[in-house]
């Protein structure tokens, strides 16, 4: 099993507040890894560290390494823009740009210099099909993406992230704002996408982790307490803290 993403002794602080305290974990290629844990345990922070989203906040300090196929994404001189092109992200709340559906999907390609109409059209169709949205929107590509329902918006955001063909897809609680039917659709989509991508997902929903993830990491106060194949972690947790959490004693 090839390791796609490798987190090595990662420390992160907001100003003086330590949020991540020495995270080390390997994320294998073409798998779905779920990060679970109580609110404030640092799972979203870790996820955002994986594509250098924290660069936008000057008060965040990071130590340690994250290797994408052996290359440190935090190496001096490494371009954050290039990193994000390879490691895409889908956010908790659907965030379509106030543009047409077509322009939303094509955005990533256009800014990367792809302006060929034909090519763009192909990609838009392919990605929308792969996110099972094509049938619903194929006649409305020129309509504002804001006119879609919440679930459709989130699937479009996934399509938009996929359109630039990243190597890793990070998903920050992608279903927390959605109804059960939309959630199911997105979970199916994730399972479909894992054939081509490596996926890391932050979720509050234990059932969701069990349904989609191959591996699950339980985090608590900025540390990975336990990281194991999903069935093992949920079926037979090795650490007392994990067991307590899964039994619903806190969090």
């Amino acid at each position, binding site marked *: 099993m090839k390791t796609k993403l490798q987190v090595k002794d990662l420390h992160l602080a907001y100003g003086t507040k330590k949020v991540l305290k020495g995270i080390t974990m390997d994320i294998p290629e073409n798998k779905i890894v779920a990060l679970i844990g109580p609110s404030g345990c640092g799972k979203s922070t870790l996820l955002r560290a994986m594509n250098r989203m924290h660069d936008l906040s000057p008060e965040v300090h990071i130590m340690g390494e994250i290797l994408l196929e052996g290359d440190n994404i935090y190496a001096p001189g490494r371009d954050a823009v290039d990193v994000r092109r390879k490691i895409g*992200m*889908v956010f908790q709340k659907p965030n379509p*740009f106030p*543009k047409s559906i077509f322009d939303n999907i094509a955005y990533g390609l256009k*800014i990367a210099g792809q302006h060929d109409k034909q090519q763009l059209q192909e990609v838009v169709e392919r990605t929308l099909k792969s996110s099972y949205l094509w049938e619903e929107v194929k006649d409305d590509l020129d309509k504002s993406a804001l006119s879609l329902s919440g679930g459709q918006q989130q699937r479009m955001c996934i399509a938009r992230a996929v359109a630039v063909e990243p190597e890793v897809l990070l998903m920050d609680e992608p279903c927390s704002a959605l109804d059960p039917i939309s959630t199911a659709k997105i979970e199916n989509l994730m399972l479909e996408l894992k054939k081509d991508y490596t996926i890391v997902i932050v979720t509050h929903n234990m059932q969701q982790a069990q349904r989609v993830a191959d591996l699950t990491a339980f985090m608590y106060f900025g540390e990975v307490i336990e990281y194991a194949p999903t069935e093992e972690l949920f079926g037979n947790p090795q650490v007392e803290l994990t067991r307590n959490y899964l039994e619903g004693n806190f969090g």
Partner: protein
Amino acid sequence: MQSRRFIDRAIKQLFFLAATLSVLVLLGIFGMLLMNGIKAFEHISLTEFFFSSNWNPAAYGKPSYGIVAMLFSTFLVTFGAMCIAVPLGIGAAAYLAQVAQAKTRLVLKPIIELLAAIPSVVVGFIGIVMVGPFIAKVFGLSNGLTALNGSILLAVMSLPTIITVAEDAIRSVPNSFKEGSYALGANQWTTLTKVILPASYSGIIAAIILGMGRAIGETMTVLMATGNALAMPHGFFDPVRTMTATIAIELGEVPYGTTHYYSLFAVGALLFLISLGINLIAENIAAKYRYKA
């Protein structure tokens, strides 16, 4: 309990009264302008008023009342001001809202707002002794009291409005748009121009239009800095006399109840309608943008 409810109701009534009063004042002003303005047309033909470029009510011979030259002058100066203020204003707003560090912003913002507090007569004076001669030197003109001078000064005066409103608009673009763009591999410049500015489009338009309203209505500065020649200007290097300047210059000593007196009210009414139109458009666009955000 009873008395608190009474106070609540009294305060509500008081606010309602204040709001009604300001509406009444507005209607009163417009009514007054219109009533007096209409009387001008007992002696001036509408054709002359709207299609002649010759304005000379205090003429040696036969007075003339054509507003074309001053209407055009007003638009010329305003257009020039916007050409300067819009790129500068939006650039500054984008910088303040997206790029500047909190500390820089804390220093810059009050300074920009202070710009609005400079009395227009001071700006006009700067136009006479500094900007005007500078323009004359740079463009090899005999003097700098031109439409361009007015445009530059009005641009400076409308900048605070444009920057403040545009910055609010840009700032109100949800952070998620920015993150979404970055996550797709966009850099700061692309994110700004392709996502953030388009998303705050209507707010920025509102900012521009409000700035424009400020420029059109400004009187003292143009009165002092644009030369006030009555001739139809041929471009930015000619002196101009705007509608506001005309009213300010002539209303001071016009004999009460004469055609000249009423014609100035007609000019005022027209100016009022233009400003009102501009504000309504801004209001409309701003409302649309609030709904979107």
